[in-house]
């Protein structure tokens, strides 16, 4: 078990370093850092001096190592556009994105799992068919379309919910701002959270449904039925538990992709989060922010993957015991 954890840790660090090197390559070689940073009037000598100052003349390996070490300390340099430390810019926007992602995750799980289970157990009921239709729409419509549709319905036509921004936020501690403590904050959160959650929710629902149907067809379920266990016991004590275990990994990974899709949602709703910052950086070729975002996302994904693997190893007894202990 320990060996397993260690191996996963090493693999994760490897991925991070790989991504870090890619980020470094972007940072250093896409466009010219010095020319991006200075105005047109700056003389050639001043540029050369700046270059030396930034260590851009050092061997590549040293530059790469320096980049990685700085990154490990969350020091990503200064933004070309805003002339501020990237870490500060991202930090200011992180609470908005994290809150949104968190609410969307909870929503997608709270709705997706029950719907999936219901669909598997009552396959031909009218409600199940309705769920299937909803899931098809959820999977087919691009996130931004759903967002626009919601805005049109609830902001333009009905006027119930605000169509952009985060509402009033409350500062907690030195860094975090939350919109959960104000009425306008909560109202602003509703549509973006639903938009972000819909795709994941339908994925989870379909996954659980498919997995549960598969489990219900398995031999041990048949044997449980043959032993006269009640349908309730079969559905919930056997089938549901066996469905959730393999699905945990996928769900965890899906939650990671909520972070990716938040870029879209933030754009539709003008939500002041990291995703919006990243998009602006792309449009304005602000490489430091792009590189930092890439690394941060990689970190989060790697962390999520690691946690999911660990959880799976704990929950599935087959992974806990090395297989050669089977007795004859």
């Amino acid at each position: 078990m320990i060996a397993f954890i260690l191996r996963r840790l090493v693999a994760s660090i490897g991925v991070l370093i790989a991504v870090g090197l890619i980020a470094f390559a972007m940072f250093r070689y896409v466009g010219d850092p010095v020319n991006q940073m200075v105005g047109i009037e700056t003389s050639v000598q001043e540029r050369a001096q700046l270059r030396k100052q930034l260590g851009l003349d050092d061997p590549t390996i040293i530059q790469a190592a320096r980049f990685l070490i700085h990154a490990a300390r969350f020091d990503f340099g200064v933004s070309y556009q805003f002339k501020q430390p990237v870490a500060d810019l991202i930090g200011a926007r992180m609470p908005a994105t994290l809150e949104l992602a968190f609410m969307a995750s909870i929503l997608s799980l709270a709705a997706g799992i029950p719907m999936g289970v219901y669909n598997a157990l009552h396959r031909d009921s009218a409600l199940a068919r309705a769920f299937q239709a909803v899931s098809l729409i959820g999977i087919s419509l691009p996130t931004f379309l759903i967002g626009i549709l919601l805005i049109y319905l609830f902001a333009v036509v009905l006027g119930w919910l605000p169509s952009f921004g985060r509402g009033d936020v409350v500062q907690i501690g030195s860094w975090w701002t939350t919109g959960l403590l104000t009425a306008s904050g909560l109202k602003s959160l509703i549509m973006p959270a639903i938009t972000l959650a819909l795709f994941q929710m339908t994925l989870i629902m379909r996954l659980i449904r498919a997995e549960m149907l598969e489990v219900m067809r398995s031999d041990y379920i048949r044997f449980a039925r043959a032993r006269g266990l009640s349908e309730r016991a079969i559905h919930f004590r056997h089938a549901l538990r066996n469905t959730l275990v393999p699905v945990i990994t996928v769900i965890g990974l899906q939650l990671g992709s909520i972070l990716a899709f938040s870029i879209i949602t933030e754009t539709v709703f003008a939500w002041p989060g990291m995703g919006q910052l990243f998009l602006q950086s792309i449009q304005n070729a602000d490489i430091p922010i792009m590189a930092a975002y890439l690394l941060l996302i990689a970190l989060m994904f790697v962390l999520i993957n690691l946690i999911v693997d660990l959880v799976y190893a704990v929950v599935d007894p087959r992974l806990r015991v090395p297989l050669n202990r089977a007795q004859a």
Partner: protein
Amino acid sequence: MTPPLLSVRDLKVEFATRKGPLVALHGVSFDIAPGEVLGVVGESGAGKSLTGLAIIGLLDPPGRIAGGEILLAGERIDNLPPAKMRDIRGRRIGIIFQDPMTSLNPLMRIGDQIAETIMAHKSLPRREAKRGAIAWLAEVGIPSPEKRIDAYPHEFSGGMRQRVVIALALCAEPSLVIADEPTTALDVSVQAQIISVLKNLTRRHGAAVMLITHDIGVIAETADRVAVMYAGGIAETGDIHEVVRDPLHPYTQGLMAAIPTLEVSARRLAQIPGAMPRLSAIPPGCAFAPRCPKAFARCAMRPPLIAVGDRQAACWLYEHALAGADART
């Protein structure tokens, strides 16, 4: 004569397909006496497993019972509502499936699986049920049962798992156990052990066994009576020793002739020419007629199971026994 424990009368099973209903069992009839071991033998595809599944009510759609009756201790069980059938499963009829690797829930401890079965049929507190589970593990011959109670299925070998499966099938003390190819998926060295565990346990608890297999050798050593199935119907039933020594049905005769023995040195193994037809291609009339060396004109009509003494054969060669019975009544 004691009334039979299980009585299957003219059981018909069919599958609904896009091209119309497909008849899988054409009218299967046999009895099982209390405590007796009936071997049901036949090739893959003959319908043995289907019969077992129909009896315990586990036919998956599109399969369904289309006719006939199944009586357990004199009462019909083929037309019961699902809730009543659930009571019968495990408590009065148990079943063992072929593959021990997949019969057990991999994420649940062995002891819990046995305990929940006991508790589903007897209202015992969990502690009692757990003690019962330990006792059953000991009965099927698993060493250190108090410790193994908390083990997971993947920590056991195939043979051990099948023992657990047997314990699970018997722990609610059914009067009939259907064993569907219980040893086919096991190593040869382990097969004999499992058969003996099954036989000893059922004898000790007074349960009858319907032993389904394609292995005549197992039947010969374990069963009291045998039913030979072919292409969705019964070809012959009778006492195992009599059937082996003096088979009535030409199919059974062909089977017995095909078994090589140590005494006779033959250069080629005897074979029944042709192959058993698939369910979708069963000819009208006697299903065996196309391959039968003794076929004659009468075989164009499907023969019923004809009683010949205390044996039965579905063959027109014994039509005189029918007439004889009529004449006597």
